[in-house]
């Protein structure tokens, strides 16, 4: 099994193990979050700072229901119990965002306030949600993934293939990608095929025209919140399953999510999804050290002596922002012309 062919295989497996698989699942989580942000932006016209903490709230309900189910011995076998708990959590999250809309945002809508006022209000909502999550579940780190952990373990893979590099594939990574595909497909079916979905798109494109043609704005707003809450809950749960749940980290997710929404063209759901993957892959690829990868591909005497890292991992989270700035400078409308002025 020696030779250049094996080297190429090893290099590809190495790349898949450390870059492709993690970036794909991370990208799916970001994409779901960004679609939620972009929907709210398209219809309600403001950047919702509370989105990250709403994701945390949804995940928290998932965890509580999971614990409840586990205590009754109900599970999904090899799959995590959290999937069973997800529908309940989605309902809870929807209730929360509708409550916020009634108590906070509706008032400003009636007053026709400037978008920036909504923005400040969403910061207030962010803190309250943040406090609620800590009140109920505390600030600690929680792992709630049960069932099988791996589909393939790195060592088993090595033994199986005889390669010197292993590929590990976690159950949660596969679930993330599958659930994300289902959720996005359902969303697009809704937006493109149903009356309500079409009304939403019309409202988002041109509010006045939509109102003239008899679309009920309250209904559009409510449906938007329902969709945003659902997506936030799914995104949060998938992220928590794949990594772990810690309220603090969900605040930090806000930046890559915003970056993804803007890169794709804010207000554009398709753009948000692509933006999610662009941000995730850039983050992982720019901070990956290519030394080992190149060692397999290059002849021995050309093997690099440095780590061949484009940017140190210290600045990992900065990548999403650098992308954001580049987009703002070069093409402020994003990939799919969103609204910027």
């Amino acid at each position, binding site marked *: 099994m020696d030779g250049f062919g094996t080297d190429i295989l090893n290099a590809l497996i190495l790349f898949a193990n450390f870059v492709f698989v993690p970036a794909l699942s991370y990208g799916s989580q970001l994409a779901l979050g960004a679609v939620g942000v972009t929907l709210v932006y398209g219809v309600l016209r403001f950047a919702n700072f509370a989105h990250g903490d709403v994701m945390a709230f949804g995940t928290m309900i998932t965890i509580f229901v999971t614990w409840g189910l586990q205590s009754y011995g109900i599970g999904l076998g090899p799959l995590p119990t959290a999937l069973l708990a997800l529908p309940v959590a989605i309902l809870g999250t929807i209730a929360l965002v509708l409550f916020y809309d009634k108590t906070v945002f509706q008032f400003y809508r009636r007053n026709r306030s400037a978008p920036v006022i909504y923005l400040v209000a969403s910061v207030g909502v962010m803190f309250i949600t943040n406090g609620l999550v800590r009140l109920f579940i505390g600030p600690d780190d929680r792992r709630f993934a049960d069932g099988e952990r791996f589909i393939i373990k790195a060592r088993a893979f090595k033994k199986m293939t005889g390669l010197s590099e*292993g590929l590990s594939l976690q159950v949660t990574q596969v679930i993330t990608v599958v659930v994300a595909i289902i959720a996005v497909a359902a969303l697009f079916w809704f937006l493109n095929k149903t009356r309500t979905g079409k009304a939403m798109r019309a409202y988002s494109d041109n509010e006045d025209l939509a109102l003239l043609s008899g679309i009920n704005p309250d209904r559009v707003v409510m449906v938007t919140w329902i969709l945003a809450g659902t997506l936030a809950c799914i995104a949060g749960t998938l*992220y928590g399953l794949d990594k772990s749940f810690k309220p*603090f980290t969900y605040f930090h997710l806000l930046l890559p999510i915003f970056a993804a929404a803007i890169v794709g063209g804010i207000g554009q759901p398709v753009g948000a999804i692509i933006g999610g993957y662009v941000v995730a892959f850039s*983050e992982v690829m720019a901070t*990956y*050290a*290519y030394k080992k990868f190149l060692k397999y591909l290059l002849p021995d005497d050309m093997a690099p002596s440095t780590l061949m890292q484009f940017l140190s991992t210290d600045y990992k989270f900065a990548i999403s922002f650098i992308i954001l700035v580049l987009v703002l400078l070069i093409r402020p409308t994003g990939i799919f012309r969103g609204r910027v002025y």
Partner: protein
Amino acid sequence: MKKITIAALAAIMASSVAQAEIKMGVILGFTGPIESLTPAMADSAELAFKEASESGKLLGGETISVVRGDSTCIDAAAGSAAAERMITADGVAGIMGADCSGVTTAIASNVAIPNGVVMVSPSATSPALTDIEDNGYFFRTAPSDARGGQVMAQVVIERGITDVAVTYENSDYGKGLSDSFITNFKALGGEVTATAAHENGKADYSAEVAALSAGGSDILVVIGYLDQGGRGIIQSSIDTDAFENYVLGDGMIGQSLIDNVDGDLTGAIGSLPGSESSGALMFLDLAASAGLDGDGPFRAESYDAAALMVLAMQAGGNADRATIAENLMSVANAPGKRLMPGELARGLEILAAGGEVNYEGASNVELTDVGEASGTYKILEIKDGAFNTIDVR
């Protein structure tokens, strides 16, 4: 204004003269980055205060009450405000704390030293604190990172390991210890193939692990905390099979690491201040009988910090601030009868009779002439799901 000032001062003076019990301060980061470590540290310190109070032998039967304050670990202004309140309003005689090196420096130089109050820190390990202008008021029972890194480097080299990747928690503790380790390791002929900092509280460490493993080494040195980013790094590394073995810094040592990591850690080695002297074991028993888990970072040091202040009071025969400062070194070092954890009553008796003590305590206390622990380390290895001591140096 003047009248009010006088009235207030008189009130404080009156309370300090007529007080029934001695007040001691415990200032640790009860909120902030190390909020998960501090409650057990505070409990350990209070264990020593309680032991002295209950012995009935402290200054002829005085008791100690504890005032807690939040150093926040990072916010110097808030930490100083808490210390200010503790010293000027509660009138504490001495302070056990603070924890993180940054706030410790701020509190020591802006509040404690100007007010003539002793601080004994159990966990501020920054080498910069060695040279602080402390007028004899700042001590620590934790050794400086400069020593910790040296010990770790020697242990790794003696194992025949010549190249490692290093990850450290991005704080004054992590950065300081890793600097010291890397310098010493290179001086001994080792090679560091990759270094990456990790921030606490991030959910995902796969990028850090990927970069570290790309250096090509099979051994990862992890300097961080066992319930925070350090554990996340190890978990992520096990998931992707990036490293074969681990070297752990002192913040990583504790049974909960082995219990909470999903995977096999057998063969990992680490170093921890302290010794396998009977003192460490006695402290574990003592803590267990009070319902505490004494096995964790900086708990033994916290107990010792509190015990030293109590003994210093007794040695000077007075519970005021200056007395503690004057006598702390003499009770910590030879000559005198050796004292173990749980033997405070005996020590108080000896001191009351005019004798001398040499407090060994839970972490083998021996203060250098600038008032910090000289640093005995035990070397541990994970075997059969537990840390076992294999060497002491």
